[in-house]
Structure formats: C-alpha cells, structure tokens
C-alpha cells in the first residue's frame, strides 16, 4: 500500500518536473521572437548600452514608423501579398482539378502520368532551378511576376493530398450527379470542391505560408526593385542597415505578423498538412 502511494507521489513529482522542463524549453524556443519584439521597441543607444535589459522601460515606437520610409516596405508587402494570393488560388484549383481526374475520371496512361507527377515529391526544386531559369528566361518571362507565378503552380504534394481527399468521397455521388445530367465540370465545382473544404484549406494555408516566406526563387527571378518581395526587401535592408537593430527588428516583426495571424487561425490545418506528409510515404 505504502509502496503504491510512494510510487504515485514520485510519478506526480516526475510529471511536474517534466512540465517545468517543457515550459522552460518552450520559452527558449520562443526567445528569438521575444527578443525581436523587445529590440524593435528600443532605441539603438539603449540596446547597445544595456544589451541584457530585455524588457524596455519606455516603449519606443518610432522604428515601426521609420521602417516604412527607410525601404519601399509597402511596395514589398503588396507584391508579396499579391503573389502569395494568386499562386495559392491557382495552385489549389489546378492541383484539385488534376487530383479529381486521378481519383474519379478516366485518363490515358493514368499510372505513368501519376508516377511522373509524384517524382516531383522526391526531387528538390534546387536540382532543376538552373535549367528552369533558362527555360523561363527563353520564354521572355525573366524578371516578371508571371514567370515567378508559373513556376510555382504545379505541386506534386498538392495533387497527392487532394487525390487522397477525393478518393475518400463515395463514387455514388458522381454517379448520382451524372444521372441527374451534371457535367463533370459542374460535379467538380458544385459537389466535389465544397465537400473538400478542409483539404482545400489545408493545402491553401500550406501554399500561402510557403509563398510568403519564399526567398531563393524570388532572388533568382525578380530583379527590378518594383517587383521585389518582402523577403528580398528584408535581406537588402539587412545588408544596408547592419547596425540599425531596432529598425531591422521592426521590419521582421511586420513581415512575421501575417504568418502569425494565419497560424493562429489555421493551426489545425497546419497540423493536418504535416500529418499528411506522414501519409505521403
């Protein structure tokens, strides 16, 4: 009896310790973000004088104003937003269409095409970025948003994920709709897409985050200042203002806020998309 009590006491203590360790670890994990916010609210003089003084005494908000004039921040913001939205919408539609065909329709050489498409999951984009650049520039699309959008629209992951989703929907739905005289186009838009809202949201959020944070492809494809994205802007800003810590941190805070909002709204979709990665193999 005593032994059992001791054991439960011990396991409670162990549980408490585990929880404390995890909480400390989570603070360590979030520390760079906390420091980013704290530094953005301080003057550089204060930062260098008292580097360990992480909680600012007075909030210095000028960094958040100045960052909009120090670089064409609004322009970069708009470009990033525009590209992310266009790519997300088009990629979700194009992937869903082909996923629907794989799941429910007849296609010549279905398996061959599917395997070809899925090689995209194994092959990193980096291994074809050089010849792809050559193809895009020979089409006259270098240094255009169109060129950047076009290379992002195909996604093996998206097709795979949506195909899984459509395969989970009963074939009777399609058959009944065909009997009612629905065209495949109408079945796709009026029946399949509304039923796949969770899958579409998962893919959409995944793509949007990826595009918002994309760096290497814009670096290669977008050369004009008027075309550049937020990530390119931040990088250029870092090179020019190495010592303006506060200003630099205010910039990264602004660039991170949209992702935080998307994350808080769609947390379960993020978890879902990662779990799908687990399914992939």
């Amino acid at each position, binding site marked *: 009896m005593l032994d059992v009590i001791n054991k439960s006491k011990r396991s409670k203590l162990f549980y408490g310790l585990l929880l404390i360790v995890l909480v400390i670890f989570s603070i360590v994990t979030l520390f760079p973000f906390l420091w980013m916010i704290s530094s953005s609210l301080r003057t550089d003089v204060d930062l260098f004088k008292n580097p360990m003084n992480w909680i600012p005494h007075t909030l210095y908000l000028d960094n958040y104003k100045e960052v909009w004039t120090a670089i064409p921040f609004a322009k970069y913001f708009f470009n990033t937003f525009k590209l992310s939205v266009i790519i997300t919408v088009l990629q979700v539609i*194009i992937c869903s269409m082909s996923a629907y*065909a794989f799941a429910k329709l007849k296609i010549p050489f279905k398996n061959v*095409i599917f395997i070809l*498409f899925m090689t995209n999951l194994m092959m990193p984009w980096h291994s074809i970025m*050089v010849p792809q650049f050559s193809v895009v520039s020979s089409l006259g699309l270098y240094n255009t948003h169109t060129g950047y959008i076009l290379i992002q629209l195909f996604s093996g992951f998206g097709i795979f994920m949506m195909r899984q989703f459509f395969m989970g929907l009963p074939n009777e739905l399609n058959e009944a709709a065909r009997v009612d005289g629905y065209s*495949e186009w109408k079945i796709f838009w009026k029946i399949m897409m509304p039923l796949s809202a969770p899958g579409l949201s998962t893919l959409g959020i995944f793509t949007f985050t990826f595009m918002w944070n994309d760096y290497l492809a814009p670096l290669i494809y977008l050369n004009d200042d008027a075309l550049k994205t937020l990530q390119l802007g*931040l990088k250029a800003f870092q090179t020019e203002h190495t010592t303006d810590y506060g200003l630099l941190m205010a910039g990264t805070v602004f660039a991170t806020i949209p992702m935080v909002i998307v994350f808080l709204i769609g947390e379960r979709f993020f978890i879902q998309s990662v779990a799908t990665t687990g399914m992939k193999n």
Partner: protein
Amino acid sequence: MASKRLHNFKSYVPGTMFILPAFVLFAVFIFIPLIYGFVMSFTDYGGFNMKSNFIGFDNYSKLFHDDYFLISLKNNFIYTLLFVPLTMLLALLAAIALNNVLHLRKYLRMAFYFPQITSMVSIAIVWGLLLNPISGPINQMLKAIGISNPPEWLMSSSWALLAIVLVAVWKSFGYYMIILLAGIQGIPTHLYESAKLDGASKFQQFLYITLPSLSPTLFMVLILTIINSFQVFDLVSVMTNGGPGRSTNVLVFRIYQEAFMNYRMGYAAAMSTVLFLIIMIISLIQFKLEKKWVTY
C-alpha cells in the same frame, strides 16, 4: 464498332481536360528543365542568350578538381551529419514528452512548431543579431555565467557552420515533432495495456513497443531530414554569405553563385546533377531499406 471506339475515346475527354493544366505546367517547368539540365551540363553555356558549345564531360572532370566545389560538398556533408541526428533527437524527445503531458499541451505544441512558420530570412536576421560576438545577447549571457572567451559564432570559420546547424535545428525540429507525435498517437493502446499487465516498466514499454512501432515514421523523418539538409540555402545566404572564407559554403549556395553570379550555367548544371544524384541515391536507399529496416 466505330461508335464504340468513339464512345471509348469520348470517355477520356473530361479526365484529359481536367489534367491538362497541371500536365502542361509539369512538362514545361519541371520535365523539360530536368532533361535540359542534363544537356546543359555538357556545355559551356553561360546564361541568357549567350552562345554555348558542347564540351563533353569537361564540366564533370573539372568538378572533381575544383577545391571550391569540393569544400562546399564537404561542408554540406558535415551539415547533414550534424543536422540530421540533432533534429531527430530533439523532435523525438519533444514528441515523447508532449505525448506524456496533459497540461498546456496545445500551447507547447504551438510554441515548438512556431519557428517553422516564420520565414528563414527573418529568423536568420534575428539570429545573426543574437549571435553577434560582442553585442549579441547570447555571448552576453555566456559572459555573465563566467565564460570569458565565448565563441565568435558567425565571425569564426570554425564555429559558423555549427551556428547555422543550430539555427536550422531550432527552426525545424517542431515540424518533425508533429510527424512523430502523430506516429506515436497512432500506436494501438492495447499494446501498452497488455505490456502493463505483463509488468513492463515505462522504459521497457518505450523500448519494446514505442520505438519498434514508430520505426516507419522515424525512418521517414530520417529521409526527410537528409533530403532537407541538401537544400540549405536561405540561412547561409542571409547569415554568412558562405563565409568567413568558404567555411559555410554549401552545395545549393555554390550552385547559385556559379549560375547566377558568375554566369557559368553549364558548370552549375553539372553541380545540379551531382545534387540530383545524391538525392536519387538517398531515395533509392530508402526504397531498398524500407522493407528491411522497418519493423512493425
């Protein structure tokens, strides 16, 4: 007969129309570049409208005597050897711990996953400041606890690569943690119940039930982290630009420099083929070993 054939043909029309946009995009922007890349690697193509000549295997034979390329390859392998076990260990520990915790679970999961959703550029900038040898808080803390000569991190050619690995691990372990957590939660509970009846301790349960049941997921995470480690670019580009010297130059960064700064695209295409082969070999090993290693 003819009408049947026509009907047969017609039944393929909707599917073909649905797949057409994805097919065209795949063909033009992925398949053609893939083939073209191999062709290009046998030329001295420079970029844009420059003329190119067929030079056979010259690019490839040059690669094996190119110190700069070999250093970037070596750095990348070191990066992989550090990044993969550290990330897997941290992700596994976090997943097991979270699985045993009932309180604050949602907060903890979000906190660990959070670095994953922020951009590499932002976090590379933040970490660059955090790791500043003089004014950065990390060295300030190290000095405060009595380390008088803390590492110079990104300024030191012997520490810079390790610093980049640590930031990459910090950024990505939460992602793999979620995959592993899903794997752990997928293990049937009756296995644990019967083990408990047999008097197995928590550690024995972990060793004989959790680990073997999790091996397919662990194996997949291993492959994903290895493949991921050969794509590192953003952190290097923002934090060190490949330096100090060549100490953090990695494969994709080298390809980028050759193709888009030195305009030697044929040569860069040959490097890309090496990257492609590395990934293919890993994928083949995965394919072969999956059945052997993975025990259910």
